[in-house]
Structures are given as C-alpha cells and as structure tokens.
C-alpha cells in the first residue's frame, strides 16, 4: 500500500469555523490531490499540487484553499466551514500526471469524514 495518511479521520465542526485537513505521504510523489466524495457525484477534484508551493484549482475549489510547503504534506483548509462542505475528503498522490497510457496511477488515502453542523 502507498504510504498515505490523512488526519483527522473524523471531524465534527460548526458552521463558520476554520478547518484544516492534513495529508501526509512517504512515497516522495510529486503530485498530490484533494477530492471530495458525495453521493451521486463520485469523486470531485478540489485542488491539486504538482510540487512544493505549486498548486492549482480543480472542479470544486470555491471555499477551499491549499498549501504545500513540503513534498510530503498537503493541507486543505476550509476558511469558514459551511454545511455544504459536509463530505468525505480523500487525498491522493501520483508520481506524474494521471492522464494517458503513460500517466501514473493515483493512490488514495483512507479519507476524512467531515461533518459541519
């Protein structure tokens, strides 16, 4: 199994509070991703990183920010959590871009279940 951990694994918070989720990898992979999983929507990309301090937006980036100050850590921050951000959040890593037959497989962490009341 790829060495990916997420913390916390579960969190309950209140609307309007800031929340930070952490993803840590031991594989030294260049690419890191944050997804959210919601019923009927599958996995949707929030933000991704292609190197230290290099990040870009995904499909559902509004209300989220990210930071990557070290290769192994990728943080997802909800500046002011809302109930619509209640979801399961997955971190993923890959050595290179996932696209195409020569692209790299994405490996996923175990997920963080976030509930915003």
């Amino acid at each position, binding site marked *: 199994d790829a060495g*990916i951990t997420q913390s916390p694994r579960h969190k309950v918070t209140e609307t309007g509070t800031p929340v930070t989720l952490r993803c840590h990898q031991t594989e030294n992979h260049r690419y890191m*991703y944050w*997804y959210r999983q919601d*019923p*009927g*929507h*599958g*996995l*949707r*990309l929030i933000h*991704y990183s292609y190197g230290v301090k290099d990040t870009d937006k*995904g*499909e559902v980036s509004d209300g989220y920010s990210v930071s990557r100050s070290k290769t192994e850590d990728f943080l997802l921050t909800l500046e002011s959590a809302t109930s619509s951000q209640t979801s399961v959040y*997955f971190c*993923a890593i890959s050595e290179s*871009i*996932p*696209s*195409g*037959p020569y*692209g790299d*497989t*994405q*490996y*996923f*962490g*175990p*997920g963080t279940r976030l509930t915003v009341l």
Partner: protein
Amino acid sequence: DQQVKQNSPSLSVQEGRISILNCDYTNSMFDYFLWYKKYPAEGPTFLISISSIKDKNEDGRFTVFLNKSAKHLSLHIVPSQPGDSAVYFCAASGANAGNMLTFGGGTRLMVKP
C-alpha cells in the same frame, strides 16, 4: 453537468455469475479510462484501465470494453465473487481535457453468495 456518468447506482449479482458495470461519457477529448474499486471506510484503489486506441483490456477476471462511437465503457467481472462487493467508480482523462481524472458517481455492486 457531469461529463462521466454511471446511471446505475447499484447492482446485485449472484456469486459465480457475470457482473457488468456501465459508464457513459460526454467529452470527446477523453482518451484514457480507468476503473477504481472502493470498500467502505477505505480509499479507492485502481483496478484496470484502457486507452482510447484499444477497445478491450483484460486482467484476470476483469475486462474493460470501450465503445468510442457510443462514448460508453463497461467493466465485466467473471466470475463474480462476494469479495467483489464494493463501489466501483469509472474515471476518464485526456491530455486535451486538463489531464486530471473526472470520476463518475459510482455503482455499488453486491455479490450474493
């Protein structure tokens, strides 16, 4: 507007029979397709993939078929086993479609002993 759709949210199959999971896409720029499998309380794991230059890829009990003209792919599991019970996500990507993976909504497969 979802570019990758799995229209069956769930599927129930008897052990030993064939499971067929379907996926449709709308973006003609997609040229690489993948299936991921997810057990409860775990992250998705890669299962099998296919490039748009092929119409079939096989790996043991798992076969993925691609019909580009219909923008449709399917995953066949033969024979199905109880351990195959999971949620299956199809995903698509393309160098001209942003390179990132776009996932379908998932299909929950239940294989009954």
